[in-house]
């Protein structure tokens, strides 16, 4: 497959990250020299002048060592009123059946990993989990035993909102836990079968 022009490669990385990237980092990611990245950024800037996203440059601050020129892709300032509105809407939307289901699993079974949640629900939960995080209902914590993986648990605010001081105060907590373990035991037995498929 033919390779994309450098400005398009830069665009792809910046779009994918959605966060400021240093020129140095971009150069390393793309296997290019910093000067090439800078030139590519100039071309990209001109190319997207008339579009819905724009480049934002953050020069390294004078006198700060280790500071690097950074750049990010962001939405055009001309749509900031729309984005503001959408951000607010995001927070008032109904969480729906999937939301309630996911959050109840995290409440009763948390801390729990995403793959476990996916497994229990039988579908991927990445979008709904992100939504629950933005709404401040669940939070992600690092797995002490494996720093590359995460667990989800209910936030403190959610528990006080529900009026429980600790998670064990949820209705029928012990009973649910036992029932879960019994049913899920069968599940894991089956999982080994499934994955060998």
């Amino acid at each position, binding site marked *: *497959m033919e390779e994309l022009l450098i400005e398009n490669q830069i665009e792809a990385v910046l*779009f*994918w*990250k*959605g*966060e400021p990237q240093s020129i140095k980092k971009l150069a390393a990611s793309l296997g290019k020299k910093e000067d090439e990245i800078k030139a590519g950024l100039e071309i990209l800037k001109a190319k997207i002048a008339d579009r819905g996203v724009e480049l934002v440059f953050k020069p390294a601050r004078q006198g700060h060592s280790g500071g690097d020129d950074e750049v990010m892709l962001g939405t055009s300032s001309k749509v900031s009123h729309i984005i503001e509105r959408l*951000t607010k809407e*995001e*927070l*008032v*939307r*109904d*969480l729906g059946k999937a*939301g*309630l*289901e996911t*959050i*109840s*699993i995290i*409440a*009763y079974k948390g801390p729990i990993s995403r793959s476990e949640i996916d497994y*229990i*629900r*039988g579908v991927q939960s*990445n979008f709904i989990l*992100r939504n629950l*995080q*933005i*709404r*401040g*209902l669940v*939070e992600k914590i690092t797995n002490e035993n494996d720093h590359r993986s995460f667990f989800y648990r209910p*936030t403190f*605010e*959610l528990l006080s*909102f*529900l*009026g*429980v001081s600790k998670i064990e105060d*949820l*209705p*029928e907590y012990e009973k*649910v836990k036992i*029932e*879960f373990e019994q*049913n*899920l035991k*069968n*599940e894991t*037995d*089956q999982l080994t*079968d*499934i994955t*060998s*498929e």
Partner: protein
Amino acid sequence: MSDTTFQIKTEVFEGPLDLLLSLIEKRKLFINDIALARVADDYIVYLKSLEKFPIADSADFLVIASTLLLIKSRSLLPNLNLTEDEQKDIGDLERRLKIYQRIKELSVHIKNHFGKDIIFAPEPRKMIPVFSPDQTMTKKNFLTAILSVIKSLPKVENIPKAIVRKVVSLEEMITNLTRRIQSSIKLSFREFAKVGKEERVNVIISFLAMLELVKQGIVNVKQDNQFDDIEIETQQTNVPHYN
């Protein structure tokens, strides 16, 4: 029909159609009833060769075996009368195999493309969380939701009833088929005697032997005397097996 059966024991098949298709393709045949009659023996021999044959899977395999037996019987005994349903089963099997074969061809595209040039969704956009529950966030709703989650966890269930019913009806079918073939042979004997095609009779007798193989080798059937009722041993009914 004199070809030796193919040794395909080492392969793992997804199901009866997978097995059947591979038998046909190994003999470089097109999918039609002649091809199906030719690979019927291979199919049965393969089933016979399996040491452990879990009943849940065997149901799927046996349904197809029964249709193959029909096709083979008909190819050997043109005067064997098939019911409308049986005719339909035969046409159906051919059609299914053709679709399956096409899907197999297409799966090569999927295999070649999957994970090769991925279009990546962007990293989750960072936003500062703002505590904003909706009105469904109550203890009561949490409990209701979690109970329904537990309830919908897949159960280790035994084989669906429809399949069990099919196994039973397959046994009946083989019994019936055996009787029908027996009587058909008696009829045919006169014809054969006239034209003197002894060879053909031998083929039919060996075919009947094959029927016995099916009965004994796969489902562990018990038959004390030749025309007694056949009892099926299905002790494993509650132990499903999934590949």
